[in-house]
C-alpha cells in the first residue's frame, strides 16, 4: 500500500497549504481597526457595481419573502434605496441573525439593513451609520389566557425573547451593554424573571400559538407584536412600550477593506432620506404609521 503515500502526502500538503495565505489580522477594537494600506470598501463596491446586503427574512413587515421568493418589506425598500443612491446594484444574502450581530463577516456581505439597534456591545464588533433610519418601541405581549395584563404582573414570570436581541439584554438588566440614551428608557425591567431565549422573536409568538406554556409573555418590537396579532395569534399587548430603540445600518468593524468612507456615505444618504420624506413614505406604507421620528427629541 506504499503507492498511497503520495496521495496522503498531497492531502497533508493541501491541509497545511490552507494556512499559508492567511490574511493580515485586522484588530477588533478602536476606530483605526483597519490597516492603513487597506483597500477602501466604498471604492471596491462602486468598482464592482454591486453591494451585498444581509437581511434576516424572518420578519413581516420588515423583511420577508413573498410566495415568488422575492425579498420585500420596509428594510428591503430602505436597502434598495440606499443602493440606488450609491449608484450600484443590490444583492441580498441571508445569514442568521446572531451571525450578523457577531461581526467578523469575513467579507461575505458589505452591510446589514436589518432593523438593528445600536448598542454599546454591538459597537465593539460593528460600526453604525448615523443617524438611525427608524425607531421602534419595545413591547411586552402575553398569551391571551395567561392572566398577565400589566407590567407588574410580569415579575417572577418566564419571558421569551429572540436570542442575541436587545430585548434579551434589557431583560437581563445589562443596561450598560445596551448603551441607549437615558431618554430611551420608559420603564425598569421586571424582577425575578426567567429568560427563555429562542432562535427568533417570532418563535415566541408561535410557541404560544401552538399551545406551549413554558413562558407566559414575550418581549419584542411593537411591530412584531402587531404582526402576530394581525396573523391571528392569541396574544395581547401588556402595558405600554418599555424602551425605544434606534435602528441603524451596520457594517463589519473587522472588515478587511476599510469601511470608514462607506459608513459616512450611507449616513449622508440616510440623512437625505429623512429630509426628503422617503423614509416616512416607506414607514407609512409598511407599518401604517411614521416610525422615523426620534422619540427622544
Amino acid at each position, binding site marked *: *500500500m506504499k503507492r498511497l503515500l503520495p496521495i496522503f502526502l498531497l492531502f497533508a500538503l493541501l491541509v497545511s497549504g490552507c494556512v499559508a495565505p492567511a490574511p493580515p489580522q485586522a484588530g477588533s477594537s478602536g476606530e483605526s481597526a483597519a490597516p492603513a494600506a487597506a483597500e477602501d470598501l466604498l471604492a471596491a463596491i462602486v468598482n464592482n457595481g454591486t453591494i451585498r446586503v444581509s437581511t434576516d427574512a*424572518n420578519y413581516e413587515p420588515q423583511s420577508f419573502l413573498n410566495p*415568488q421568493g422575492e425579498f420585500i418589506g420596509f428594510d428591503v425598500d430602505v436597502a434598495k434605496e440606499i443602493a440606488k443612491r450609491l449608484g450600484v446594484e443590490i444583492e441580498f444574502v441571508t*445569514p*442568521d441573525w446572531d451571525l450578523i450581530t457577531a461581526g467578523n463577516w*469575513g467579507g*461575505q456581505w458589505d452591510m446589514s439593513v436589518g432593523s438593528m439597534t445600536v448598542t454599546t456591545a454591538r459597537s465593539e464588533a460593528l460600526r453604525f451609520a448615523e443617524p438611525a433610519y427608524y425607531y421602534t418601541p419595545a413591547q411586552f405581549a402575553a398569551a391571551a389566557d395567561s392572566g398577565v395584563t400589566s407590567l407588574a404582573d410580569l415579575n417572577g414570570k418566564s419571558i421569551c425573547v429572540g436570542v442575541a436581541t436587545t430585548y434579551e439584554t434589557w431583560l437581563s438588566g445589562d443596561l450598560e451593554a445596551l448603551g441607549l440614551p437615558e431618554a430611551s428608557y420608559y420603564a425598569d425591567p421586571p424582577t425575578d424573571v426567567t429568560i427563555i431565549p429562542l432562535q427568533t422573536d417570532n*418563535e415566541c409568538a408561535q410557541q404560544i400559538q401552538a399551545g406551549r406554556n413554558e413562558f407566559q409573555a414575550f418581549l419584542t418590537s411593537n411591530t412584531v407584536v402587531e*404582526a402576530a396579532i394581525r396573523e391571528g*395569534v392569541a396574544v395581547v399587548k401588556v402595558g405600554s412600550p418599555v424602551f425605544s430603540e434606534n435602528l441603524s445600518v451596520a457594517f463589519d468593524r473587522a472588515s478587511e477593506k476599510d469601511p470608514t468612507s462607506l459608513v459616512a456615505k450611507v449616513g449622508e444618504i440616510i440623512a437625505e432620506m429623512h429630509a426628503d420624506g422617503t423614509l416616512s413614505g416607506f414607514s407609512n406604507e409598511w407599518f401604517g404609521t411614521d416610525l422615523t421620528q426620534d422619540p427622544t427629541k
Partner: protein
Amino acid sequence: MTQTTTELQSQADQIQSLKRRKQQRFRLGVNLSYAVLFLLLIYAFSGIKFNLFGLQFSTISLDTAFIAENWYFIFNGVWLTILLSVLSIALATVLSLLGGLGRLSKYPPAYALATFYISLIRGTPLLLQIIFFFLALPQLGIRLTGLWAGVLALGLNYGAYMTEIMRAGIQAVDIGQREAALAIGMNQGQIMRRVVLPQALRLVIPPIGNQFIAMLKDTSLISVTGFVWELLWRSQKVGRANFRSLEALLIAAVFYWIITILFSIVQANIEERLARGVRTT
C-alpha cells in the same frame, strides 16, 4: 409412466398456484393496510373535531390558504436538496475509498491518518461540523459559500462513516481472488484496481444507497448557515414571517418523504441490476 409425470406436473402446478395466491393475498393485504394508514394520516391533519359518546376527538388543523400560497416556493428547494446530496455523496465516496484503503494499509502513517480522520469526524456532531466549516475557514483565507461549506462538512462526515463500509466491502472479497491475481503476476495496485475493487463495488452499493437516503435529510442541517435555500431553509423563512411554522415544516416534510421514496425505488433497481449473474442461494 407418462400418467405419473402429468400427475406430478399438476401437483407441482397446484402447489405453485397456491403459493402465488398466498402471495397475491399478502400483497393485497399490504396495499389495503397502506391505504388505511394513509387515510389515518390525512385524518390526523384534517382539523376535524367531533363529539362521540361524550368523548371529544380533535385533530391537527392546518391553514390551507397558507399552504396553497407557499408550497411552490418551498418546493423549489427540492432541487438544491438533491444537488447537495449528490455532491456530498460523491465527495464521501471518494473519501471513504481513500479512508478504507488507509484503514487496510500496512503503512503506519496512512493507517493512522485514516483512523484519526474517522475518530475525529465520528466523535463530533454533524451540525457542529457544518457551522465550523462555515465560521472557521474564512480565518484561513478560504471563503467557501454556504453550499460548498455544507458539501464539505457532509462529505467529510459521511465519508468517515462510509469508510467502514468500504473496508468491509474490500475485506469481503475472497482471499483466493487476490492469490489468483498475484499468481498471474499482477502487482498490488493492479490487484486492487482490476480484481478487488470491482467486486467490492457490488457489495458496497446497497449500504452506500442507504447512506445517501440518510444524507438527503441531513442536508437540512446546512440551512443553519442561512445561505443555502434548500427545503428546510425555505420552509422556516416563510413559516416564521407568517407565524405558520407548523404548516411550512409539514410542506417540507412531505417533499422530503416523496424524494426519499423515489430514491428508495432507484436504489432497489440498482441493487437488482448488480445482483444479476450472482448466485444468492
